[in-house]
């Protein structure tokens, strides 16, 4: 109780920059961060001016934006070591506010992809439109290649064996064995870069001799790619109605319901 009163006191006395919604946010406990305890966090916040906290949030936002350019998950330990430093005790609050900035200003969302090692990726919350001219869309020609692979996986029920992907790409004159003008080493791009970026999952099928692998959608794809848009795109190519693919249509509808909630 005394904690709360003290917090209220500090707000009124020294908070010219304090935004009203921050008060609300403190009440809503985020379960994904268990440490430090909420009372520790409160005490930590009490010791800092709102301007100090804002500054830290801005630094974290910048750090994550720079790191995200490589599209590799960003470890919590790295954020703490390089930016948060002595503000460690209010880490959850800082991350929460950074995430609000990402959503409000950039249309991104900070997602924890690896709860064990605490790593984050930034996913794009803006609708991805496959028909959007490539020049306008933020992204690379690689996105087109990725889109093809994701749609193959999706249309084949969520998982495909490795040769399926290579054969599809071959039809588009992209050969995994050759160096491609635009994509370079295609095999490396698909099985390493896209995997590292969490667009694809590439796993060994157990008990196979010789070794076989299969592809699934990665976490980033699940968060960023609109399945309904993808299905609509595929059905246009085939000149069919999206409903023709009952299973995919159901899944896309379910995903749509899920994303509109969040």
């Amino acid at each position, binding site marked *: 109780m005394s904690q709360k009163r003290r917090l209220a006191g500090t707000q009124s006395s020294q908070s010219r920059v304090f935004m009203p919604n921050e008060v609300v946010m403190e009440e809503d406990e985020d379960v994904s961060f268990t440490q430090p305890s909420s009372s520790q966090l409160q005490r930590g916040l009490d010791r800092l001016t709102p301007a100090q906290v*804002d500054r830290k*949030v*801005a*630094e974290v*936002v*910048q750090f994550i*934006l*720079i*790191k995200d350019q490589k599209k590799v998950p960003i470890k919590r330990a790295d954020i703490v070591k390089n930016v948060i430093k002595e503000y460690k005790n209010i880490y959850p609050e800082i991350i929460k506010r950074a995430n609000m*900035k990402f959503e*409000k*200003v*950039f*249309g991104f969302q900070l997602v924890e992809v690896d709860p064990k090692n605490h790593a984050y990726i930034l996913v*794009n919350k*803006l*609708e991805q*439109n496959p*028909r*959007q*001219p*490539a*020049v*306008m*869309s*933020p*992204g690379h020609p690689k996105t087109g290649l990725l889109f093809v692979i994701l749609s193959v996986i999706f249309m084949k029920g969520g998982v495909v064996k490795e040769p399926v992907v290579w054969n599809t790409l071959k039809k588009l004159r992209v050969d995994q064995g050759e160096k491609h003008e635009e994509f370079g080493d295609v095999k490396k791009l698909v099985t390493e870069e896209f995997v590292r970026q969490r667009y694809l999952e590439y796993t060994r099928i157990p008990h196979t001799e010789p070794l076989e692998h299969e592809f699934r959608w990665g976490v980033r794809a699940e968060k960023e790619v609109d399945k309904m848009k993808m299905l609509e*795109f595929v059905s*246009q190519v085939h000149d069919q109605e999206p409903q023709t693919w009952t299973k995919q249509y159901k899944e896309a509808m379910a995903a749509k319901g899920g994303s509109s909630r969040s």
Partner: protein
Amino acid sequence: MAVTLFDSHRRFLQTIMCNGIMEGSKAKAVHRHCCEVYHTPYTDDSLDEFIDLINSYLQPLFMQIRKGMSEDDGLQYYTLVNMAETDITRMSSDYADNELELFRKTMDLIVDSENGTASSTDVLNCADSLQTKKMKKKETEQVLSRLVQDKWLNEKHGEYTLSTRCIMEMEQYIRNIYQDLVKSCAICHNIAFQSQMCCNPSCGIKIHIPCAARYYKGRVDPRCPACSKFWPHEIPAIRTSSQVSTLSPPVASAISTSQSRRMR
């Protein structure tokens, strides 16, 4: 911050971030495209207003979309700059210490030169005297080409110049480090590297080449705007944006055809 951002603003910001730097006419096209996609009201001349609103949200994060002129073609460009940390540490996550030192040395050469360039030979020679860790010629060339690829440097016929993006992002840093060694353009007052310089030793002002083109256009007797001495340099021709954008119509038509093909 009375008005909130819409997805059209966010998409525009993302596109700028992805491109690193965007030429004015492209920025306009992207602005229009973003507004169409997200059904946001759009007028032809509202780009700066649109950007101002985004900037009001970026400011608390110490970032800004800034407009600046390219020293090469004189066109306006937009880029997202980081205002908290204007020095090279911004690049530190991508470059090793000796690579950053090479970049600083290249910058030294450019600042010291009269015309804002550093020859590749001079840069390669620097690589031997790096204090952090020496670099082989081959390595140096790779680092340089990476710096060009990442849009920190430009390269033309073996001469390196600072890219527009680099100047826009590091202007404050450059001014702090080099102080009196760098000069501002007498016409646009931005920092000037690739430029013409007044030959009067007691004057010595600099004018960007595209600024000189505009300033001296049609003047028979070009004189220095500061000391009124004769301006002995060749008056460059104005490069209009239409000249540059001759490249874009085929691209634009490619977009529209691919789009209409897919629409069917």
